């Protein structure tokens, strides 16, 4: 079983104020290898509760153009699994923010599942999201992850049946990642997300009862986030964050612009 002192569990158990939990996705090594740690620490200072650190893959088939781009940049900069673990270790010198590694299974298999879980846990990683490992294929790493106290977060999508949502809720640990729209990752117009999402949210509320619920895909502003996560424990932003980095990097003061965006996502525009 997952040890109770896991930072993700603590986050959801101890979260008391009325604001939603905010999780940010950042591709490790984007926009450069040096900035990742500083960005994570700055995200935390600006209201981020949880970080999903992306393990870049050359063929991210569930991702839209934004995360394809950030993944390519990170790979070109020479990101490796060991460097990602170093980044997490560095963050841990300064912060207890929960960190989930998120990425495709192939680099994990290549690294070796056992070795990967050992090093992830030792570096201070709190959980894993592997989008191309559905429940059916979880056997490939679930025991190793559990043995190292690493919860695996599963996803539910708008076309996931009620029965399957309940099954995923049983197996998911940490929280359930609710994908608000069918499609790849990427910022979308607010209306596009809101219209289709309500019925899905209702189904999630009914069927996901054991785990906290985080909603993601397409969220690009505080207003989107508030509207979509009303009945959820929190929300996840990825592509819109990376788009913001891309818009300002490497001009002077780019990090401040990024942190201001992060702050506004959580608290609204000042």
């Amino acid at each position, binding site marked *: 079983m997952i040890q109770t002192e896991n930072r993700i569990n603590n986050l959801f158990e101890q979260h008391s104020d009325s604001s939603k939990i905010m999780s940010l996705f950042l591709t490790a090594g984007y926009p450069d290898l040096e900035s990742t740690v500083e960005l994570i620490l700055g995200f935390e200072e600006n209201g981020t509760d949880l970080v999903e650190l992306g393990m870049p*893959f*050359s*063929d*991210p*088939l*569930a*991702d*839209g*153009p934004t995360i*394809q781009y950030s993944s*390519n940049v990170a*790979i070109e900069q020479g990101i*490796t*699994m060991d460097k990602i673990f170093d980044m997490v270790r560095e963050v841990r010198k300064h912060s207890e923010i929960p960190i989930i590694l998120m990425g*495709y*299974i*192939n*680099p*994990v*298999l*290549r*690294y070796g599942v056992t070795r990967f879980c050992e090093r992830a846990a030792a570096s201070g990683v709190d959980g894993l999201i592997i*989008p*191309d*490992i*559905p429940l*059916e*294929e979880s056997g490939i790493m679930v025991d190793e992850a559990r043995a190292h106290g690493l919860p695996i977060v*599963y*996803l*539910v*999508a*708008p*076309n*996931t*049946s009620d029965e*399957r949502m309940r099954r*995923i809720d049983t197996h998911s640990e940490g929280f359930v990642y609710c*994908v608000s729209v*069918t*499609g*790849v990752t990427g910022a979308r117009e607010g209306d596009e997300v809101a219209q289709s999402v309500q019925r899905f949210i209702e189904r999630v509320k009914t069927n996901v009862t054991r785990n906290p619920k985080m909603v993601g895909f397409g969220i690009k502003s505080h207003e989107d986030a508030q509207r979509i996560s009303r009945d959820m424990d929190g929300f996840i932003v990825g592509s819109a964050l990376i788009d913001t980095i891309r818009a300002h990097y490497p001009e002077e003061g780019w990090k401040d612009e990024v942190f201001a965006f992060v702050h506004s996502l959580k608290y609204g525009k000042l």
Partner: protein
Amino acid sequence: MAAMRYNLPTKEGYFGNFGGKFVPEILIPVLEELEEAYNRAWNDEAFRNTYLDLLQDYVGRPTKLTYANRLTDYYGRARIYLKREDLCHTGAHKINNAIGQILLAQRMGKERIIAETGAGQHGVATATACAKFGVDCIVYMGAEDMERQKLNVERMRLLGAEVRSVESGSKTLKDATNEAIRDWVTNVEDTFYIIGSAVGPHPYPKMVRNFQRIIGDETRKQLEEVEGRLPDYLLACVGGGSNAIGLFYPFIEDEKVQMYGVEAAGLGADTDQTAATLTIGDPGVLHGSLSYLLHDKEGQIQLAHSISAGLDYPGIGPEHAYLQDSSRVIYAPITDEQAMEGVKLLSEQEGIIPALETAHAVAYLEELMPRTTEDELLVLNCSGRGDKDMGTISKNL
């Protein structure tokens, strides 16, 4: 020795350690729906008859089994037969699968068809099937492949397909496949993804194999008629592996039939310009299934290279991975240069200009034939014709 029983994949989609469904959650319900529809259709006589009628009246099946007398004399060993998939409508075996899948799409009420293509042969086959059925067709093709295979792009457009240029990654087949999957994930409700080879998540490898097994079924029957017995050797090229598995599958339980799959070594299996996945690759996950693939030490997919665009893929169908590991099939690499020799050999000896893919299998005769004897029989799958490759062929002659 007891006859070997072969009934893979398992219901989870595994061939030994290979296969599976490594896809995002959104695709799970879609794959389940597809599998159920496929199983029902395949067991429905009316569906099978419609499929076989189209293969007969539209594709031109059964394709001939041609005795290659001059090629046989050239080696002076086993008698060589050619299974003439090059005579299929559109010039290659790809159409067998495209017809099967489009019939299934129709049955499932999916009106929007998408496909990926590398060399353009599967794209042309799919565009052809879509024209025949009057449905919308979108083909994803790497920008670089579009440049290399202009003629096929024009053919697809003439057939009414929309060819979407893929600018991401290496701008070749693997990226076109990524983009097709992204489209599918986005349009799950109304879209059917016609995968062109025995790759991808379960049930695709099984489904594509079964739509291609007609090659082996006919071969068995035709050889029985002329020789009264089974072949001793089967020989086919493998990229993703659909023509090879189509030929091999009906013979898998016949232990005396030796099978050889020939993959593209590019400049050499010991160079970084290769597509010899089974020879030098490692197990990993690409495009929804666990199989052998070409990747670096961080698990990033490497670019494949082959003179043949149809073999230029860093993965391989999971069933071939299993057949290699279980030693049922022997896989061997053939270089670009050897493949060019294969083109010349078949053209000069038999008056058949083979596709560059097929030429890899032809070239392997140099290694295989000396080990055969005069009383043995060999069938080589002539998977496609070479017209599409004339540009590349004349540059390399």
